[in-house]
């Protein structure tokens, strides 16, 4: 089995040879690094790995074209190639667009308590733009870069879902 993946932004390529039943034996070659290990899925999405007699528990939370792999409390994002067309994540983060504008998105579902700026206002990087409330806590949504508020998509009192655009800063 051949695979390509991007692990924390670093692309790698590997080959696996699998054998065995309940506890699989796996030979893996990733670039020039080889691994011999045993693996069994002990609970749904939870794998127990033996590697050089080390007992390692690994949890995989799979998504359509990516997964978060937890090893001993460390979360490692892995995007698999050939895993189907990419689908937007549940919670898109605020991110730059091609035109250089920044979309501020709601990091969680909740209510807009206050807007702190108006369209046309100049804003500094890290300045608060909207205050959201979820789970009884108020959180300021800040702009990652300075500029001018190009749009303010929500009003005070609005209910928003995770990923909804709150404002754009150009």
């Amino acid at each position, binding site marked *: 089995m051949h695979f390509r993946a991007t692990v*924390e932004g670093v692309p790698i390529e590997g080959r696996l040879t699998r054998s065995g039943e309940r506890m699989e034996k796996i030979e893996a070659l990733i670039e020039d690094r080889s691994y011999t290990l045993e693996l069994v899925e002990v609970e749904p999405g939870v794998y127990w790995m033996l590697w050089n007699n080390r007992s390692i528990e690994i949890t995989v939370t799979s998504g359509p074209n990516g997964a978060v792999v937890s090893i001993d409390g460390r979360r490692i994002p892995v995007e698999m190639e050939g895993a189907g067309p990419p689908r937007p994540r549940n919670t898109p983060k605020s991110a730059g667009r091609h035109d250089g504008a920044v979309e501020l998105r709601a990091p969680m579902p909740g209510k807009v308590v206050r807007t702190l700026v108006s369209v046309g206002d100049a804003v500094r990087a890290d300045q608060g733009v909207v205050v959201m409330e979820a789970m009884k806590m108020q959180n300021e949504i800040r702009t990652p870069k300075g500029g001018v508020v190009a749009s303010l998509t929500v009003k005070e009192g609005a209910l928003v879902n995770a990923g909804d655009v709150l404002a754009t800063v150009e």
Partner: protein
Amino acid sequence: MFKKILISNRGEIAVRVIRACREMRIATAAVYSEADRGALHARMADEAFPIGPAPAIQSYLLIERIMDAAARAGADAIHPGYGFLAENAALAEACEAGGVTFIGPSPASMRLMGLKVESRRAVARSGAPIVPGSTDPITDDRAAKSLADSIGYPIMLKASAGGGGKGMRLVAAAKELESALSATRAEAAAAFGDDAIYIEKFIEQPRHIEIQVLADRHGAAITLGERECTIQRRHQKVIEECPSPIVDADLRRRMSEAALQVARAASYTNAGTVEFLVDRNRQFYFLEMNTRLQVEHPITEMVTGVDIVQQQIRIAAGEPLSLKQDDVSLRGAAIECRVYAEDPDNNFFPSPGRITQLRRPSGPWVRDDSGVYEGWTVPVDYDPLISKLAVWGATRHDALDRMRRALGEYRVEGIRTNLDFFREVLEHPHFRQGDFDTGFIDRWLAGRPEPAEPARDERDLAAIVAAIAEAARKPAPAGSAGASQPESAWKRIGRLRALKS
């Protein structure tokens, strides 16, 4: 004893009360909002009553809905838990009017302790120490100056009508007083229509330490030692300990005596908590009294062996305290971590949603007071506390090591939690030494280094398991990898490498 108790709350604290009732063979009635259909507390109770839509203001905070459910259940008592209506004297009054016992103090005690100025005055009269300053509004600048001089700088100016951190100003030295007075007065007048202000000494790098009180309806009152609640993030407690690393037997005795003075000043009955600020010289000052069961009561239970919720119920039923002060002893040390549905990697934003996997720690001296289960969707409408993880150890050191072990066994998938954050805090040398103040976490977070990159073999193992999981999820035809995919990072870098070689 009561036949049936209605619990006017949700989540872990409702579960806690249900467990106490079951142990006492008292029937339980839960209430639930539309967001809490199938919630753990509703599942566990003997009866469950819907009380309205998801927003608390339309359900858990509606006194008439609670009283109506109690009447339908035929409950003879109501336990309010903490939060929601727990410190609302109107619920206690509605209970009195409805012939149902409210498991808590009298409405008068609740009202007195709920008022900032009046409670401060009552406590001052009782002889318990309050933060030095004025107990009446100050209008005269000369009086303000002489008071500030007598208590010593730094001081805080506080608008009488203010609250929640608004209308407050720190004054570091005498020379700043005059301009600060006029600025605060002006702000207060503008914001609250009232320019009356108070002066209080500013306690630098304080610790937040509280005393648990139990008082029956026959005049007996005892204390169950202190809890150290200094570890806070944005003024929210996250880790509590019992005992406090800085409280010795003498200080405990003096703080307990002060707490009893406060309780007596409020004619207090049932379980209550007197909160103190403690300064660097271990001087303590009354902060406020919480007239209800405290979130962090489990650590006191573990160290004293006293079931505080059962005591609440017995006191409310009119039983005299079965414990005398001499029966109370502290054994070992207990620590609690408040497990929140929040994302420490994303500014601690709330992280509601469905819990896809839940594995809870267990074994010796580990207690998990959870309000959720695998498959439950943590609603966006209520506070993010999903569990309180508490451990006990013969010493503070043992308890810390046990907590570290228990945190390592805890696994929550589907939502983010602060479990890993606690693992970091627990290893911090200042925390282990017990050397901290209320600003500890916020200062540490401000200067916290980025977590180390995972090692190369960890990354490789992650990729291997992800590949296996992907193959199990969707058996792909051999050799199909990436055939018609958008250009991948792998390809891009491959090309870059080719260019370089």
